[in-house]
């Protein structure tokens, strides 16, 4: 019983992180039609920078998170200005090839730059894990990992934040409008370039912070970015693009499925879960489990 509860908590926290990653991705895909393949790499970079700041430079975790936010704010602006901006004006096919190829190229170079410089300058063993002491929590005779609970709390906070942003603020309503009808959005005089800048910044900063929280519980390695992008994309397809509640459900399903699989068949099979799941959904219900939704 205790083992089951432990598994559920770790499945939920893993799934919550997947859902966050996927939601940030589907927010940008549905509004700008630009697929960011480097999304998972930003997540890994967030984790790596957090470990460098909080462990190798001995900063307080809160200060490290603050510096991380400012840093990735800058990265995100650069990304939007350098890559997304020049893609946005293109015709459909060129936008598609351009966005996949450019962000794939960026993701790979970021990945190998991080892997190379980590091994050369920081630590010959290329794994980022945080040794921040996390209290083990005892709940009715069951001990739970504190860092998992911190992740869970963080995910709930972020999801409610996203929900409030999309439904209560002017910018969030603008984002929903852009996803629903791009031409209408432009006709009523709103600026798609400015909104795309804001959304990409938001998505990338949120992703980097999620990475920082993720390394509290699970070690990351530099080359995990692209597989994570694929997992996020699996969740996006399972849920339907731009459907926030469904993304949360789909992410949780994937997280629980991975935890159960690694418990029953061994951890080596966990990466196969999302891939098989995606193929099954594509074969039997290509519109996603919940149909196509718009915020």
């Amino acid at each position, binding site marked *: 019983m205790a083992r089951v509860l432990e598994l559920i908590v770790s499945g939920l926290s893993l799934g919550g992180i997947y859902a966050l990653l996927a939601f940030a991705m589907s927010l940008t895909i549905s509004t700008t039609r630009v697929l960011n393949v480097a999304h998972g790499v930003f997540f890994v970079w967030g984790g790596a920078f957090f470990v460098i700041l909080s462990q190798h430079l001995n900063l307080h975790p809160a200060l490290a998170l603050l510096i991380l936010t400012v840093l990735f704010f800058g990265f995100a602006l650069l990304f939007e200005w350098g890559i997304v901006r020049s893609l946005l004006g293109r015709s459909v096919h060129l936008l598609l090839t351009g966005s996949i190829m450019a962000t794939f190229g*960026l993701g790979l170079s970021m*990945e190998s730059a991080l892997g190379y410089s980590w091994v050369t300058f920081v630590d010959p063993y290329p794994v980022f894990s945080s040794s921040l002491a996390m209290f083990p929590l005892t709940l009715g005779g069951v001990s739970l990992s504190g860092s998992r609970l911190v992740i869970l709390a963080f995910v709930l906070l972020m999801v409610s934040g996203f929900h409030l942003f999309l439904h209560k603020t002017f910018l969030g309503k603008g984002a929903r409008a852009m996803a629903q009808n791009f031409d209408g959005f432009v006709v009523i005089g709103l600026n798609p370039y400015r909104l795309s800048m804001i959304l990409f910044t938001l998505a990338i900063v949120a992703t980097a912070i999620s990475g920082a929280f993720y390394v509290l519980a699970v070690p990351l390695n530099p080359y995990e970015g692209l597989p994570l992008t694929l997992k996020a994309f699996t969740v996006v397809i399972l849920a339907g693009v731009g459907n926030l509640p469904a993304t949360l459900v789909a992410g949780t399903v994937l997280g629980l499925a991975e935890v159960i699989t690694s418990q029953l068949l061994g951890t080596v099979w966990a990466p196969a879960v999302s891939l*098989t799941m995606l193929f099954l959904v594509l074969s039997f219900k290509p519109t996603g489990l919940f149909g196509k939704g718009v915020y």
Partner: protein
Amino acid sequence: MRPTRARATTAAAGVIAALGALPLFLSSTWLVVMFLSFVWLILTANYDVLDGFLGHINLGQGAFFGLGAYVATMLLNIPSVQQLGALTHVVITVSALAAAALFAAVMAFPLFRLKGLYFAIGTLILIFLLQVLALNLGPLTGGSYGLYVPPAFFMSTFVAYYLALVVAIVSVALNCYLSRSTLGLAFRCIKEDEGAAQAIGLSLMKYKSIAIVLSSLPSAAAGVLFALNSGFIDPNIALGVERSLLPALMALMGGTGTVLGPVFGTAIIRIVETVFFHYLRLPVPSMLFFGITLLAVALVIPEGLLKSPRMRRLALFRALAS
């Protein structure tokens, strides 16, 4: 039209003859470099069948290569296959090609329900799925330790060079055929407008399946040649992400949908790679270089060299592209 075509045929024959005579003058190191370039050219030309002619970005082209390499090597490690004598090579090649074609035909159904970026990611997932299988089905594939080809079945680079040259010529000829046949016209019709293509009676699934099966065969053959020549494969060598990424980069750089685009793209990338990483031995990871190149190509010359308006103004490129 006719004189240009005759000139093109002469030029192609000349290039092929020169490449055929080349091994007599090359050291074994350069022979390997050329052999690997042909392998890349095969993958790139096959990638362009789906991208250039059908408008689908296939980031899983390396899956067919890896599948071919793995099926051939796995069969070579079975004792009863080793005793077939001269037939062994035929048997492994035919089964590798059949496996890749079957895989492509089966995967066509879930994959071609997707369009655009969903298709691209779906195919990318394919290669990760094969990687997981190759890593975890240890008894069959050797897991992360990889598989060795029994020494009796090694293929000398000299033989591999000519076979790869033949397969590369077949791949480029396939693209050439597609650029001027009814089949290719059907592909391009689907690329331009799927609705209109259906309205004039083209079966989308049929043509898309034909395209993916056609593009899988030479890639699998390249995988077999690569495995036999190198003697060792593991999930990173045979199914690494760069097996799928570099064909896309090379085709995009040269210009998709043109017969010569993939050839030029492959040549440029291979020359730069050879000079930077084998000759100068730059101490940077090669994926960093390829990633940045891909980023730059996608942003600066999105149409590829041969189709880019900037390049078209140069007379030399106009002559080559015709």
